[in-house]
């Protein structure tokens, strides 16, 4: 199949085929890690702009690496150092990026829907790198890629997402992506951190982590996002750790011996996950980082075309 979408804004409105196209393309992109020359000529002359209204280390670095390995010129704008602090409007900033020759804009914004607005206002192609508590497609795609790589398939697996589901764009994108690829999704967390209506999406909701882990093939452990939360959603980090922390002891007691553990990072060590579990061979956090570059290379490549087809052999 061919990929014909202008922008990648979320997994909710993507088809199963489109998701698989990105995952299939990411697989050969990952081969660059084992090469001595980590450079492909694919995006020569293309300009990728990272426009980040929220702090980020790995997502931004990962998109930057992905663009550079494919020979694109990558510009990084973070809001703290840009004209936005002088009061430039969102749309003006976007049009400035377009005037600078941006072919692809990778945007992270604290407001849900900002990437969609950007996609409508510029001719540049837009990739959502996280919008509020809405979607984070590149993270979900790299999670899907990692599951597929470790487990061979996603169809028929049971995946448990643990933690702050309410504030998590990673959870939302994962739920849509996993369901489209045929996985059964469970979520587990304090009742205050689970949005109402999830069961209508076909998601099984648990407030008891042991029950949610029973028989699960994959556990995706979310970060407790202290910066997004209002106080009072759960009594203390210590209690959270006791009820919802992923520990080696808990895994031994209730999880399948071959359970795969994912964490989008950065982890609050000793809160949602213990350092021993992070180092456990069943935990794929380091692979997730390199898979992230491969998936983002695939996303950039699939959006790097222009108008009109030039057919050659």
């Amino acid at each position, binding site marked *: 199949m061919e*990929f014909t979408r202008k922008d990648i804004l979320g997994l909710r409105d993507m088809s199963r085929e489109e998701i698989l196209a990105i995952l299939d393309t990411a697989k*050969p992109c990952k*081969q660059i890690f084992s090469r001595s020359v980590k450079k492909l000529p694919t995006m020569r002359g293309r300009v990728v702009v990272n426009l980040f209204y929220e702090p980020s280390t790995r997502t931004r670095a990962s998109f930057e690496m992905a663009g550079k390995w494919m020979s694109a010129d990558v510009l990084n704008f973070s809001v703290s150092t840009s004209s936005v602090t002088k009061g430039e409007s969102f749309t003006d900033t976007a049009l400035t990026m377009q005037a600078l020759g941006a072919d692809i804009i990778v945007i992270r914004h604290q407001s849900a829907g900002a990437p969609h607005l950007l996609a409508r206002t510029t001719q540049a192609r837009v990739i959502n790198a996280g919008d509020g508590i809405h979607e984070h497609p590149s993270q979900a795609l790299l999670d899907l890629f990692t599951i597929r790589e470790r487990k061979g398939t996603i169809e028929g697996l049971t995946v448990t997402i643990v933690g702050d589901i309410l504030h998590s764009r990673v959870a939302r994108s994962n739920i849509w992506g996993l369901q489209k690829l045929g996985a059964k999704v469970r979520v587990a967390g304090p009742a205050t951190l689970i949005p109402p209506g999830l069961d209508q999406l076909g998601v099984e909701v648990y407030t008891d982590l042991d029950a949610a882990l029973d028989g699960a093939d994959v556990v995706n452990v979310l970060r407790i996002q202290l910066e997004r939360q209002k106080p009072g959603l759960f009594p203390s980090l210590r209690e959270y750790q006791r009820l919802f922390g992923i520990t080696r002891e808990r895994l031994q007691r209730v999880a399948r011996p071959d359970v795969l553990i994912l964490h989008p990072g950065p982890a609050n060590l000793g809160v949602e996950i213990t350092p021993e579990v992070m180092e456990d061979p069943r935990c794929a956090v380091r692979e997730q980082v390199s898979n992230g570059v491969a998936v983002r290379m695939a996303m950039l490549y*699939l959006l790097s*075309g222009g108008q009109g087809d030039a057919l050659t052999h």
Partner: protein
Amino acid sequence: MSFVEKAVLINEPGVSRALTRIAHQIIEANQGVDRLCLVGIRTRGVPLAKRLGAEIERIEQTAVPVGILDITLYRDDVATRSNQPIVRETNIPFAIDGKTVVLVDDVLYTGRTVRAAMDALMDLGRPARIQLAVMVDRGHRELPIRADFVGKNVPTSRLEEVVVRLREIDGEDRVVLIERQSP
């Protein structure tokens, strides 16, 4: 747009005869198979390279390494196409430094695929030399590239298309000439 089959250029025994001849020519041109390897360009160069490898092994009693090359990320039309084909894996599980690499493809046309393949190979190592084997050379080169080993030279018009069908992919061995018809 529809396509009409105009002629069969090579029939089934013709395909295997051409491969046997090319295998002999590769061995002769390189005075044996020392430091020789074959790399098939996806998609239909791959089964052709495997068959050439088996044929060379049968003649010389020495196995020749065969690799797979995907050139999608090296194409020169990425920026001008509005949609992108899916990339597939390259699998060359041997070092190509100092080797003679025979690139194998089904049809040689503009030469752009071969240009991309050579660039991709150079990023993987430094071969001593690169040679090119194709089942059909249909002319219309846009780059200064020529094949070292050719199954059949076929003069064509740009409205025509040469389709190489191979049993591993298409269930039959046959090379046909088809013509695009505007509706």
